[in-house]
């Protein structure tokens, strides 16, 4: 896979050399008028906000890309109030998300989405600060109980801006779970304290439910399962109050993801079909695909690999029609992993290459980190320990960046095992010693306690027991 990346770079360098040879001493005229693009951007923004635009009727050509780029610049420079900026950024984000963007090797669509998310993010922080702090008039600030008249008149988001806020936070869930957890917690508290002050009561309840659901997902990514469960309970209470079946189905899905991470695959396979059926009945394609992906991974972990592969291939085929690149990349990564487990390394690598292409120039995210781990496992299976080590270390760096401490500990054990294969026991010991405190503190392997003790003892004697290491890894894999 490292070679595949090198091939991509070499091919790009060749294209660059070709381009430079053709454009040397040449005036490259770009038919672009910034003022005109700016005017079009303002018109487009108005149409998006008013909801007068169907994305199906639009072709993403250079002209539209130019206009969207100018529109994002406008959002950055906008002097609108925080709730307005939040609403605008959310609307533009949703609009861009729906556009089908072809030939995008630089991931321009993703960049525009992320920049919109950043704008919304800044507005959210401003809103939260406005609610929780106020100027005391003597130059200092003090924490202020939210919900007072002094603060609220300047920041009363309606249902639209709450929806925009949720969309923006959701967009960051895979790439910044710790930030989403933190901000969701703050905003939940804000909604709670401001009951009656923000819009209608069902809007507050809706906001609380959505934010709690996001916080549940973020804490799950961070490996804090107790916190995740508590947040999902809060989300369920809000959606029950609203009698919102879609919200409740999404909470059920999130709970099943959590059960899956706890290794309860039988439970997941038993209760997933009605949830998926609900989403299919409502025409919620993305959610039903996510259910199928979860089902396939649960089948894989239960040892039913043929069924898992067949299901993944079916959902990948149906996904090709829609533009959900991260989901498609995750499906391809799982297909590759299943091929790897069957010993079909060439097929596995082909799937991983496609997944890499789909993720493109994306920032560090969970899908990328998982993919690197799968690639490492494939190399390892082939006995290419150096390549495996490199991929595992890169995956570990991504998990560490995402602050997913449980995954970091898990990867350290993989790295230690690879280092033992490379006859580098001292480095392996260091990795194990770095991983064990997290494994113990997070109670990652309640039933693998003996393996932890055994491994600890063998490392203490400076004679790492590879069997104890492997046993612990297997326990972790089952509960990951």
């Amino acid at each position, binding site marked *: 896979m490292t070679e595949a990346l090198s091939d991509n770079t070499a091919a*790009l*360098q060749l294209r660059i050399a070709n*381009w430079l040879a053709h454009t040397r001493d040449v005036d490259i005229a*770009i*038919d672009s008028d*910034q003022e005109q693009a700016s005017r079009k951007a303002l018109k487009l923004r108005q149409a998006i906000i008013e909801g007068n635009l169907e994305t199906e009727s639009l072709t993403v050509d250079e002209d539209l*890309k130019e206009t969207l780029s100018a529109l994002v610049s406008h959002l950055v420079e906008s002097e609108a109030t925080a709730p307005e900026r939040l609403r605008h950024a959310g609307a533009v984000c949703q609009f861009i998300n729906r556009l089908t963007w072809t*030939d*995008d090797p630089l991931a321009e669509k993703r960049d525009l989405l992320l920049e919109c998310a950043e704008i919304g993010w800044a507005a959210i922080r401003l809103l939260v600060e406005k609610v929780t702090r106020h100027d005391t008039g003597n130059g200092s600030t003090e924490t202020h109980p939210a919900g007072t008249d002094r603060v609220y008149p300047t920041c009363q988001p309606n249902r639209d801006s709450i929806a925009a806020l949720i969309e923006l936070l959701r967009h960051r869930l895979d790439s910044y779970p710790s930030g989403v957890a933190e901000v969701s917690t703050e905003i939940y508290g804000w909604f709670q304290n401001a009951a009656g002050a923000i819009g209608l009561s069902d809007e507050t309840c809706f906001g609380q439910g959505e934010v709690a659901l996001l916080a549940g997902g973020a804490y799950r990514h961070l490996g804090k399962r107790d916190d995740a469960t508590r947040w999902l309970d809060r989300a369920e209470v809000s959606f029950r109050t609203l009698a919102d079946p879609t919200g409740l189905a999404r909470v059920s899905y999130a709970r099943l993801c959590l059960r899956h991470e706890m290794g309860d695959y039988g439970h997941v396979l038993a209760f997933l079909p009605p949830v998926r059926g609900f989403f299919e009945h409502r025409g919620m394609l993305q959610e039903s695909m996510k259910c199928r992906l979860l089902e396939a991974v649960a089948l894989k972990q239960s040892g039913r690999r043929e069924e898992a592969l067949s299901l993944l291939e079916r959902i990948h085929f149906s996904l090709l029609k829609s533009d959900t690149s991260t989901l498609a990349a995750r499906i391809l990564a799982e297909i590759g992993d299943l091929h790897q487990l069957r010993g079909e390394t060439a097929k596995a690598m082909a799937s991983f290459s496609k997944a890499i292409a789909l993720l493109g120039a994306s920032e560090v995210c969970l899908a990328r980190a998982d993919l690197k781990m799968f690639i490492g496992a494939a190399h390892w299976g082939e006995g290419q320990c150096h390549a495996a080590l490199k991929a595992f270390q890169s995956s570990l760096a991504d998990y560490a960046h995402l602050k997913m401490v449980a995954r970091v500990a898990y990867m350290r054990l993989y790295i230690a095992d690879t280092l033992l294969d490379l006859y580098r026991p001292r480095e392996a010991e260091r990795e194990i010693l770095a991983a064990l405190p997290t494994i113990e503190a997070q109670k990652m392997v309640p039933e693998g306690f003996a393996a932890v003790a055994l491994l600890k003892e063998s490392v203490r004697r400076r004679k790492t027991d590879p069997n104890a290491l492997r046993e612990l890894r297997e326990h972790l894999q089952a509960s990951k």
Partner: protein
Amino acid sequence: MSSGEPAVRVPGGPQAESVPDAAEIEAFFHEFFRPLVRRAVRRHRLSTDDARDVVQEAFVVALTKMGPEGNAAAWLKQVVDFLAINLNRTRARRAELLRRWVASSSTMQRSMSLGMEDD
């Protein structure tokens, strides 16, 4: 020319010679050159002309410094960002120096003319 078409004019370049590469050049223009120019304009507030120069410079850097590992497209975007930041920084520094120089020279001129009046 319609909006978005590459207008690369190779002086004296025979048309027949560039025909096999024309499609590739156009594809590269749409896939890499134009999006990078837009990025530099949007994120760094450069004019289209400055952005174009920055992107060309990034391509030159890529030929010599792009490593075999990692994400080539992400690397390229980062180089464009660095070069655009450098350009803006250099401009700001020059503007500041010019401002100081103008201020000090006008003070000097004023003191010189005052001195002459004293004489």
